[in-house]
C-alpha cells in the first residue's frame, strides 16, 4: 500500500536573523497537511503568527476559537476578522514551544478552510484552537512569522497526508 503520511519540507533555523518561515508551492496532491513547529524567540517574549494563502500569504479573513489551561484555570476566547492567527506565546527561554497544526482538506476549492491546532508551552499555557480562513482558495502557501527572530534550532516540518 502506498505511503500516506510523508514529509514535504523541513526548515531548521540557523543564526539569529530569521523572522519568517515560508512553505510555498505546496502540492495539492494530499488531503490534509500537518505542520509541526518547535520554536521560540531569540529576543524577548514574542507572538508568532501563521498565515496561509494561494500564491502568497493572505492578510484577511481569519478567526479562531481557543480553549486553554494556565495551570490553575481553563478558559476560552475567540477572535474574529483577524489578519492572521497568533498561535503561541514564545517566552524566549531555553524551552521550545511545540505547536502542531492540522490543516484540513486544504486543497479543495469549495469550502472555507478549517485548521485544528494544539500548542504546548511547558513554561505557560496548554492550548487548543480551531482557526478559520474564510476563503475557498486552495492553500499552497504557509507563512510563519515573528516580530523579532526565531531562535537558532527552531524547527518547522510540513507533512502531507494522502487519502485512498
Amino acid at each position, binding site marked *: 500500500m502506498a505511503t500516506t503520511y510523508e514529509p514535504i519540507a523541513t526548515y531548521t533555523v540557523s543564526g539569529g536573523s530569521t523572522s519568517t518561515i515560508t512553505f510555498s*508551492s505546496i502540492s495539492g496532491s494530499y488531503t490534509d497537511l500537518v505542520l509541526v513547529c518547535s520554536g521560540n524567540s531569540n529576543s524577548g517574549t514574542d507572538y508568532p503568527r501563521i498565515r496561509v494563502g494561494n500564491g502568497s500569504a493572505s492578510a484577511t479573513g481569519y478567526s479562531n476559537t481557543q480553549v486553554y489551561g494556565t495551570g490553575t484555570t481553563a478558559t476560552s476566547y475567540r477572535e474574529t476578522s483577524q489578519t492572521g492567527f497568533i498561535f503561541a506565546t514564545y517566552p524566549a527561554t531555553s524551552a521550545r514551544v511545540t505547536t502542531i497544526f492540522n490543516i484540513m482538506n486544504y486543497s479543495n476549492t469549495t469550502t472555507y478552510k*478549517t485548521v485544528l491546532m494544539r500548542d504546548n508551552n511547558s513554561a505557560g499555557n496548554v492550548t487548543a484552537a480551531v482557526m478559520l480562513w474564510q476563503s475557498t482558495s486552495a492553500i499552497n502557501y504557509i507563512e510563519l512569522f515573528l516580530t523579532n527572530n526565531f531562535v537558532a534550532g527552531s524547527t518547522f516540518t510540513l507533512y502531507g497526508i494522502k487519502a485512498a
Partner: protein
Amino acid sequence: MTPILGIMASQISGHLETGAYESISTVTVGVGGAANVTFSSIPSTYTHLQIRGISKTNRTSSSVDSIKVQFNGDTASNYTYHELIGNGASALSDNVTSTSFTVIARTAGNANTNFFGAFTCDILDYANNNKYKTHRTLSGVDLNGSGALFFNSGLWMSTSAITSIVIAPQTGTLLNQYSSLALYGIKG
C-alpha cells in the same frame, strides 16, 4: 511582511517513508447529502485507527451540530463520553453515560454554506478482543463569531474488535455535500 525564506515543496526529495500510516478509505459526500458515512470491513491488521475529516450537517436550529458514531452496528446503550468545550467565552465540560452512540466532533450546522468543521479522532487498540474501546478527538468549528473547540474521549463498552463505523449527524438528518471523511490505519 516579505518572506525571507522559501521552501519549494517540489524541490524536496528523499521523503522518509515509514509505511506505518495507511489510508483505508475516504468518502466525500455528494449532491443531496448523506444520512451517514459507513466504513465497513475494516481489517484488524492495524494497531490504531484514525478518522480525519471536514463536515457540515443540515441542522437548521443551530449553526453548530455534532457528529456521532456507532461501532459494529451496535445501537444499544453501550456508549459513554466526556467532553471539554471552549465556546469562545468559557471552558465547559460534561459527560454522557449509557447512550446509544458516542460523539467525535463539533461541526457546522445551519451556517454559511462554506463553513465546515474539522476533526481528528483516534480509535485506540480497536482490534483488541479483551478490552473496551476508547477514542479521543480534537475537533472544532469556527464561524467568525461563533463556534466551538471540542476535546472529547469516548468509550464503547464492548470487547469486540471494531470492524465497522457509522458516522452521522447527531441532530441534523444529513451530512452536507463536500463533507469528507477519511479512515486511516496505524501499524504498531
